[in-house]
């Protein structure tokens, strides 16, 4: 690859040169993508009049922390609490999802019994269920189980939504691992649980990482499920439902909108920038999910 690049000099594989026009185009596109973020940051420090009259201006002399502090201390939406709930959800959903799917995928991938082939098809058929539109019947099921408006109820539903895809990719991955590994473990007297835990699972790190990233992003960004399942009665809210509750009613008051949104996105953006290589390669590996 590098030899080829050396041969072709500055020309890329497509044959196009990295011309100034190319740099200008990519830079302009990057700026376009970043404009909303710029507006979000600078306007979080301004007064309403300043935001409305000069939204693009950057004058640090007139910056005020007043509205950011007010947003942080908003009694209706404790951002730290929203973050804590959301992070708790991410952790619990991943544990439940990976915890139930790894053994199931292991059996499906390894057992010669035809029933497990049918089970795989059954699980895969769930992949295309648009989860948010079945929330209405999910509410009745959770109510019957006594889990409506509770954290465990939300975790179980979110985890169930991840099961089809997780089993699908786990099974595909385990099938690529040599079966002689299991046979050797079995001859040494290890049962299937032990083989899974000590031999298979450690080899599954890359696919577990992919699933973890996908689950995390979908749980983090989910709005409909926490909105309907947690409801106002539970006293729990995630970042998304908290933002909705605090910004939704006051969307004309920009001194509330911008600081609240900034505080809501800042941590996840920092996490993303620190882990972007990992997140993007994981997503590319599992991008079939959509």
């Amino acid at each position, binding site marked *: 690859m590098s030899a080829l690049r050396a041969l072709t000099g500055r020309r890329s594989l497509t044959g196009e040169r990295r011309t100034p026009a190319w740099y200008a185009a990519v830079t302009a596109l990057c700026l376009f993508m970043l404009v*909303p973020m710029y507006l979000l940051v600078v306007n979080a420090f301004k007064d309403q009049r300043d935001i409305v009259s000069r939204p693009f201006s950057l004058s640090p002399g007139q910056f005020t922390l007043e509205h950011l502090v007010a947003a942080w201390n908003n009694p209706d939406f404790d951002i730290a609490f929203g973050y804590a709930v959301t992070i708790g959800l991410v952790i619990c959903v991943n544990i439940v999802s990976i915890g139930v799917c790894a053994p199931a995928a292991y059996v*499906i991938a390894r057992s010669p019994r035809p029933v497990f082939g049918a089970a795989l098809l059954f699980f895969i058929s769930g992949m295309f269920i648009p989860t948010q539109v079945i929330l209405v019947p999910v509410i*009745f099921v959770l109510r019957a189980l006594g889990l409506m408006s509770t954290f465990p109820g939300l975790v179980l539903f979110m985890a169930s939504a991840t099961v089809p895809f997780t089993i699908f990719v786990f099974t595909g991955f385990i099938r690529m691992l040599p079966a002689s590994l299991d046979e050797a473990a079995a001859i040494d007297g290890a049962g299937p649980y032990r083989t899974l835990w000590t031999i298979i699972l450690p080899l599954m790190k890359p696919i577990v990482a992919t699933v973890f990233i996908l689950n995390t992003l979908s749980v983090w960004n989910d709005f409909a499920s926490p909105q309907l399942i947690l409801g106002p009665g539970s006293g729990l809210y995630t970042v998304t439902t908290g933002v909705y509750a605090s910004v939704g009613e006051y969307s004309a008051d920009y001194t509330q909108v911008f600081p609240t949104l900034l505080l809501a996105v800042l941590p996840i953006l920092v996490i993303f920038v620190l882990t972007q290589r990992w997140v*993007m390669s994981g997503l590319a590996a599992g991008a079939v999910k959509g």
Partner: protein
Amino acid sequence: MALMSASNTDTPPAAADLPREGGARPRRPRRPIGRSSGSRPRTSRWVEASMVLPALVVFVGLLVVPVGYAVYYSFTDYNGFPTQTPEIVGFDNYVRLFESADVRGSMVVTAIVAVAGSMVINAAALGLALLLWRTTRFTAFARVVMFYPHVLSLIVVGFLWSAILGPQGAVNSLLESVGSSPLPFLSDETWALATLILVIAWAQFGVQLLIYLAGLQAVPAELLEASRMDGANRWQTFRHVTWPALAPSVTVALITSMISLIKTYDVVVSLTGGGPAGSTKTFAYQILAVEFPKRQVGLASAEAVVLILVAAILAFGVLALRRRHDQGVQE
């Protein structure tokens, strides 16, 4: 039994369609009939069942059973109160669904969002993937910039853009300062729908960009080199070398974008609230924010069933098309 267990070791139908390695994977040779599992000691069926059961319970309990309930409620007049016994009303809800101008409108909006949105998303993603094909420090940075909106939840994206494009928003204030009249990004029916689609595209094309970037890895470098040697221009190279190699990625990117677009809900809530005059009310918004609060569980369930069917037809239809296309290429 032996035959079935042999087919059990094959890749599942969907797996064969995913462009994992970009090219066709050699199939595993089938086991000879009559020998089911080789010399491997068999695990007890109870142990195996105990390993599958937890996943099955979670999946069936909270995904399959609700879908079943949605189908059942869609044939009843249920209003969601535990005291009411749902009464079977046959296809009434489905008839109402197609007769109501409101619901039909939301179907049209969803179809427009899904088709136009996936066009915009895929055009943007493919174009940018071609621009950012080679990995350098600069393109790696640009990819992160293109992708970052994907980690912002759509509810935040909607509020942010409504603050930017609203009547008093940043863009209109800029337009005013240069002396032109404000644009009705969110207050005119046609404008609002276009704005919704473009905002979704801005926020969501990152995944498709990654799919295309991964797909470009499968473009054979020798072919590119050869076509250039033969004097093909950039368009000819794209049309005859890059595009054919990208075909599987295009299918996957189209399906994934369409399937996620027919579920559009969050961004409608925060950007337009379905307005003005219902012009941006999507089907999922109709279910969750209109029918459900009105306790029309029967109607909402019928709508959910329709959406599930459309998603399934879309997914399997496009997969089948691609399979036929692949076979056509091989023959």
